[in-house]
């Protein structure tokens, strides 16, 4: 019952957050310099032409009137029509969201696998050269931002040793039978492993670029948590029972040490999604981030609003899931 109440409270908070985000984005993008009409003015346009185009896109009304009209549409599921793409905003945004989600999830998996493996190895071989090497690798991973990793990977595995695709989400020459935009999941469901392999070859470098900094964070935090846990009495007890070091680390220490890392992963996952904006641009990946940059360049106000709302919704949902997962995994909270 308490859990249900907590969830309902969080949902109410989420609604307020989303409305706040909608208000802020609507007014902020109209305050910053540059408007879509100025962007499309041809040579020789007169004041009348500017007025005509302004009216055509409904920008001749006051900002408050525009907001009321837009909000009215939003409550009916109509987020407006993109100025540059000339299509309804929400289908456009929802059409691109799966690509970004697949990329982010793949990056998260890579980060967890690499970070987790490094942490466990570091603890297993603590106070040796291996741990020092892992600490150095963590430092390098953290000090280089994801977009620089992207460029390094492009040069290494795109140019010098062309193993992976540099741009796009899937090879243009392939026939796509997909009915959803979740290409990776659907290719597995259809047992089309040729498509799945092609998708992975396109996603690997952008996902790895996003994953490396997060993997370093996970590695650092998990290793620290594990090392602290390794000194606790129950771990010492399991050692005295004769269990091997690997068993002690994985089966005894890890379940307790992983909780702070889990919370961190949740928070960092939202940052990782934010990072997709520039990474998708570098790899010409057809996700929401790439679309967001074009929308900003073209001052496509309805599209910017739609993308920000969807990102805000995504972030709040992820935070909710993380909190719930933490509550379920932590016995102290679960039984509270």
């Amino acid at each position, binding site marked *: 019952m308490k859990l249900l109440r907590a969830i309902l409270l969080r949902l109410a908070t989420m609604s307020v957050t989303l409305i706040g985000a909608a208000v802020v984005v609507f007014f902020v993008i109209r305050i910053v310099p540059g408007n879509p009409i100025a962007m499309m003015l041809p040579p020789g346009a007169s004041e009348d032409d500017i007025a005509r185009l302004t009216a055509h896109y409904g920008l001749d009304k006051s900002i408050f009137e525009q907001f009321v009209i837009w909000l009215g549409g939003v409550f009916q599921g109509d987020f407006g029509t993109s100025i540059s793409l000339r299509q309804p905003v929400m289908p456009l945004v929802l059409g691109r969201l799966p690509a970004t989600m697949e990329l982010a999830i793949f990056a998260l998996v890579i980060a967890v696998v690499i970070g987790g493996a490094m942490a466990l190895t570091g603890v297993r071989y603590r106070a040796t050269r291996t741990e020092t090497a892992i600490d150095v690798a963590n430092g390098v991973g953290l000090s280089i931002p994801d977009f620089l990793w992207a460029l390094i990977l492009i040069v290494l595995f795109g140019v010098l040793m062309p193993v992976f695709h540099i741009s796009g989400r899937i090879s243009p020459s392939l026939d796509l039978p997909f009915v959803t935009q979740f290409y990776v999941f659907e290719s597995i469901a259809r047992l089309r492993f040729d498509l799945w392999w092609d998708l992975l070859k396109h996603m690997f470098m952008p996902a790895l670029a996003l994953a490396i900094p997060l993997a370093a964070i996970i590695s650092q935090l998990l290793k620290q948590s594990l090392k602290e846990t390794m000194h606790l009495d129950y771990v010492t007890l399991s050692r005295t029972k004769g269990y091997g070091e690997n068993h002690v680390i994985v089966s005894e220490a890890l379940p307790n040490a992983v909780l702070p890392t889990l919370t961190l992963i949740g928070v960092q996952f939202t940052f990782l999604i934010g990072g997709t904006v520039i990474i998708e641009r*570098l790899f010409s990946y057809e996700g929401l981030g790439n679309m967001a940059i074009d929308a900003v360049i073209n001052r496509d106000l309805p599209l910017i609003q739609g993308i920000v709302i969807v990102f805000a919704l995504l972030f709040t949902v992820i935070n909710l899931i993380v909190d719930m997962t933490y509550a379920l995994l932590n016995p102290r909270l679960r039984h509270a």
Partner: protein
Amino acid sequence: MKQISRRTVLKGSAAALAVTALAGPSLAQGIDELVIAYNVNLPSWDPTVGPSAVNPTIQGIYQSVFDQFILQQPDLSPAPGLLTEWGWNDDKTKVMMKVREGVTWHDGSPFTAEDVAWSLTRAADETTGNPIQFIWSTLGNIKAEGNMVTADVTRFEPTIFKWMYFLTGYVLPKAYYEKVGPEGFEAAPIGTGPYMVEKFERNAFVRLKANPNYWGGKPDFETVTIKFVTDAASRVAEIESGNSHVTLEMPYEEYDRLKGGDAIMGTDAPISDIGMIFLNDIEAMLDPNVRMAAAMAIDKKLIIDRLLSGYGVAIDTLQTPDYIAYDPAITVPHDPDKAKALLAESGFSPENPVKFKIQTTRGFKPKDYEIVQAIVGLWRNVGIEAEIEVYEIAKHFELRAADQLAPAAFYNWGNSVGDPTTSTGFAMFGPSPHSVWDGEDLVGKIGPLWGEADEDKRIAGWKEVDKYIAENALVIPLLQYVQPILHAPGVSVTPHASGALLPHLMKRAS
């Protein structure tokens, strides 16, 4: 010495096999499917409405699928296209256009004069949102009869036929468009152009199939994939890795580095874009000595050589050598001593400099910020202290339309029809939202040229205007840009002076 074990050899072999299996296409292979890494996304398939309709860079993709009313050749000159003949009647109250016969749309239906009349009428209709409607609306009562289209001239526009191979000057299929509507057209566009759209993934790529019935002859490459790779470093990686066969617009240093190799060739040619500095008639720019000193202090050749690796053509008017009203006799010399003397007349010197602001974008055009930095350095030597303000291009457009640019503002101007109306005219005519120079003298000189029916007189008039502008330093033209194109040796690329990269002009290299 360390011994190589059998296990090491096996590991190495497995890794090599994996790399080979994963590797992308090789440059050494023959080209079956031409892949182009393009520098912009394609937001919309309708080439007559919305922001993409007036984006010069996108026109290359549009012209692969759609035909314009009149064909524009690589040297910017017009040639018979869907219209084979065009012109006015003697008193210029009507226009007549003869439509090519035997052309078909991509769906196999016949192209007719009705399509031309409908496209012109639609472009002139202000409810469709065509940004160039103000030009198309100078034609009215547009009618098709047989293979002829006629229209009344509601306001004489000497450049109307030039617009027919410029922005939004495309012929769309009347029957198909009316049948499928705007959304259906976005989903499955058809034209009469050299390529047909086979597959389109927004923000990713468009795959084109050669139109076997193209009136201009079937293109050389059966399939062309245009990838939208907006980041310059990624485009360089695309061509360097062999994932793409052609790409354009990369830093000149990268162009020079790559073009000399065996695997990649380079093509560079001047295009119709120019770099210039708008002068707003406010503050220090009201002083003619300051303006002329600012113009004379700039060593354009030095800037081109040092910053653009020599890729550029210095210009002294807003006309490039390819434009119809270009006059090589109009020059503004680089003369720092004269600049100093002019400033001294107004009481300024390096010790007591005249101060104003110059605005520029950073990264919008090649080395834009660095060019302005160099200019500010050259100005400092003669007694001008300019403060640089960096802004986004969107802000530039907004400030220019509101006549609120700083006293000096760097910008690039495109004019792919090469007419003086669309360069000097729109950039310098005070009432135009693109001009920030409001001097009545200039407005009086340009005004009569808008409707001048005598072509020789019109061009001579624009040359006079350019001379007046240069003598009074009302704007500072800097350079004509050169477009770098990198391509695989198996492709022969014909550059187009408009800057459009056109797949149907690419051939298999022998």
